[in-house]
C-alpha cells in the first residue's frame, strides 16, 4: 500500500507513552457494570491514559442473518423486534420498507401516518433512555434514568394497548400495519405528546446546565466530521459532528416530506453535543408527532391486496434503509424466488458507529471511556445481531 493511501485511511492517532512505569492491559467486559450489555474493550493503559483500545464483539451474536435465511419473510418480522430491543417499531419499519421495495408494494396513507407516529414515539423513548444511561455512566446513579423510564413507561403502555406487547411489538406488515390505530389510541398518543414537552423541560433543567455533566462531557470524545463521514457514522452521532445528513430528509421515505421539522446539528462533535442533539431531536420529533396526529386521514391501515401468507417475491434484490433512532438501519435482501430470502443482511447503525470508538478514546482517562462509549448509543442486540 502506498503512503498516500495509508494517509487516506484515517488511522487512529497514536500518542506518546511517557516511558515511566509499565503499560497495563485491561479487559473491560464482557461483564462490566458500566457497559450497556455484554461488550468488551481491550484497553492498554499508561497510568490512567488510554493508549490503545480494541473493541471485542460477538458476545450477543444471535445469528439473526442465518435465521432470516431459513424462516419466511413474515416470520422474520418478530425477530427484527429483537435487534435493537429499545426500538422494535423502527426495526419493523425498516424491514417492511426493504420488503416493500423488493416486491413493489404500496402502502396506504393512513398506515404511513401510523408508522410515522409510532416511529417518532420510539425515537423519543430511545433518546430519553439513552440520556438516562449516559448520565448513569457519569455517576448520576439512577435519578435521570428513573425519570426517563417513567416517561418511557407511558409510551410503552400505548404500544402495549395497540400492539399487544411492551417491547416486542411485531406490528408492521408488508403493505401496512397489523391492526388499526383507533381513535382511543390516537387520543392516548395525543395525551402523551401534550405531556412530553414538560418532561423534556424538566429533563433539561436537571441536566443541561449541570456543571458535572459539562465537565465530564465538553471537549471529551471529539469526533471530526471528515472522519465521521469516512467511517460511515450515522444518526445523532454524525449530526453532533456537524454533518447534515438525516435519511428522513434525504430519502423522504414514507411521508416525511410532508412534515416540517429541522435537523439539529452539533458544532464540536463532543459528548455534550451528542447529548444536546438528542434532546433537540426529541423536540423535533414532538413537532412531527403534532402534525401527524392532526393530519392523520381515515382509510385502510393495510393494503387489502397485500399478501401475508405464502409470500414469494420474484428474484431480485433491494436495500431499504430508514433513519432509526441510532442511525441508518438498513436491510439488504436478495430473493431467489423462494419463500425465504437467499441473503438477509442487516446494516446495524450501532455496530458501525463503534468503528471510531478507539479514535475517540485515545488519550482520554480510563474513567471517560465508559462515558464516550455511552454517548455512542448502542444496543448490543444490534451490534452483534
Amino acid at each position, binding site marked *: *500500500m502506498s503512503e498516500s*493511501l*495509508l494517509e*487516506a*485511511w*484515517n*488511522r487512529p492517532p497514536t500518542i506518546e507513552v511517557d516511558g515511566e512505569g509499565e503499560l497495563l492491559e485491561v479487559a473491560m467486559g464482557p461483564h462490566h457494570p458500566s457497559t450497556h450489555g455484554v461488550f468488551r474493550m481491550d484497553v492498554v493503559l499508561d497510568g490512567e491514559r488510554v493508549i490503545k483500545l480494541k473493541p471485542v*464483539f*460477538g458476545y450477543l*451474536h444471535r*445469528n439473526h*442473518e*442465518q435465521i432470516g435465511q431459513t424462516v419466511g419473510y413474515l416470520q422474520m418480522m418478530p425477530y427484527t423486534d429483537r435487534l435493537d430491543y429499545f426500538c422494535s417499531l423502527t426495526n419493523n419499519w425498516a424491514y417492511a420498507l426493504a420488503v416493500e*421495495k*423488493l*416486491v*413493489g408494494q404500496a402502502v396506504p396513507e393512513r398506515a404511513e401516518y401510523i408508522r410515522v407516529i409510532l416511529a417518532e414515539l420510539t425515537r423519543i423513548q430511545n433518546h430519553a433512555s439513552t440520556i438516562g444511561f449516559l448520565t448513569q455512566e457519569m455517576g448520576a446513579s439512577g435519578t435521570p434514568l428513573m425519570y426517563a423510564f417513567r416517561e418511557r413507561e407511558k409510551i410503552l403502555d400505548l404500544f402495549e394497548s395497540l400492539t399487544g406487547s411492551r417491547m416486542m411489538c411485531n406490528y408492521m406488515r408488508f403493505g401496512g400495519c397489523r391492526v388499526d390505530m383507533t381513535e382511543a389510541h390516537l387520543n392516548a398518543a395525543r395525551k402523551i405528546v401534550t405531556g412530553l414537552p414538560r418532561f423534556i423541560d424538566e429533563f433539561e433543567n436537571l441536566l443541561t446546565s449541570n456543571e458535572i455533566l459539562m465537565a465530564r462531557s465538553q471537549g471529551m470524545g471529539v469526533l471530526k466530521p471528515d*472522519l465521521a*463521514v*469516512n*467511517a*460511515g*457514522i450515522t444518526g445523532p452521532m454524525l449530526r453532533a459532528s456537524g*454533518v447534515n*445528513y438525516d435519511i428522513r430528509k*434525504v430519502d423522504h421515505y414514507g411521508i416525511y416530506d410532508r412534515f416540517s421539522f429541522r435537523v439539529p446539528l452539533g458544532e464540536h462533535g463532543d459528548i455534550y453535543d451528542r447529548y444536546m442533539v438528542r434532546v433537540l431531536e426529541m423536540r423535533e420529533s414532538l413537532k412531527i408527532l403534532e402534525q401527524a396526529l392532526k393530519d392523520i386521514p381515515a382509510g385502510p391501515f393495510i393494503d387489502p391486496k397485500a399478501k401475508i401468507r405464502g409470500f414469494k*417475491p*420474484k*428474484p*431480485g*434484490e*433491494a*436495500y431499504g*434503509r430508514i433513519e432509526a433512532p441510532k442511525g*441508518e438501519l*438498513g436491510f*439488504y435482501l*436478495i*430473493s431467489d424466488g423462494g419463500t425465504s430470502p*437467499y*441473503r438477509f*443482511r442487516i*446494516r446495524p447503525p450501532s*455496530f*458501525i458507529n*463503534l*468503528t*471510531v470508538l478507539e479514535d475517540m478514546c485515545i488519550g482520554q482517562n480510563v474513567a471517560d471511556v465508559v462515558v464516550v462509549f455511552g454517548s455512542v448509543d448502542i444496543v448490543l442486540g444490534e451490534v*452483534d445481531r
Partner: protein
Amino acid sequence: MKTVEEIKTAIETAVSGAQLEIVPNGSPSAEHSLLVDAAHAFAAAKFLRDDAELKLDFLSNVTGVDWLDKETTEKVKVTRPVEKEVNGVKTMVDETVEETKKTVTPGYLEAVYHLYSMAKKHGPVILRMRTGNRSDKVELPSLTPIWRAAEFQEREVFDLFGIIFTGHPDLRRILMWDGFKDYPMRRDYVDPDDYEYEPTAHDDVLKRAQAHLAATTTEAAQ
C-alpha cells in the same frame, strides 16, 4: 445522479484496464449493481470516492453472499457417428441423439458494497466483487483504506463467509471466537449436534433430533 451505465463508462475511462459488468436487478427497486474485477477494484473505488461529480464518500453497507456451485442439466441434441448395421454391413452413420448435459458452474463468494454520497445526497451505487471459487481463491482487495466504514464489516464478512481481504489492517474473527474453524454463514455449513431435547420438532430439526437419539442410544447400548 449518473446512471449505472454512465458510471461504468466513467470508471472505464478513469481506470485503464478495469473490467466492469452491470449486474441487473430483477426486483421493482431496479437498483442495478456494478461488478468490478478484483484487480482494479481498489482503483475504481478510489475513483468513485474522489470523483467530483459522484463523490461517494459514505460507504453504508458491506456484506458477503455465498453462491454455491450450480449444477444445471439441459437437454442438447448432438450429432455423432453411430455404428449401425445396414443390410448386414456395419457402417458408421451420423445420427442426432438427445443427451442430458450436466454443467457445473463453480460457485463463488461475493462482497457487496452500498455506496452513498453525504456531500451530494445521492445514492446508492452498488459495487460487487467476486472471488475465483469458494475454497482456495477467496481473496479480494480490502476497501478499508478508502472507507474506514468497511473496517468492521469486512472483518465480519471474513468471519462468517471466509473471504480474505488483502490489505485489511486488522483481519481477525470478530463475532465468533478466535479458535473457531468454520464459516457459519456459508450455505453448506452444518451446525454442531446439540439436539438432545426438541419436544416440538418437525422437518429438519426432527430429523436431527432423531439422528441424535439414535446415536446416543447405540452409544449407550455398546
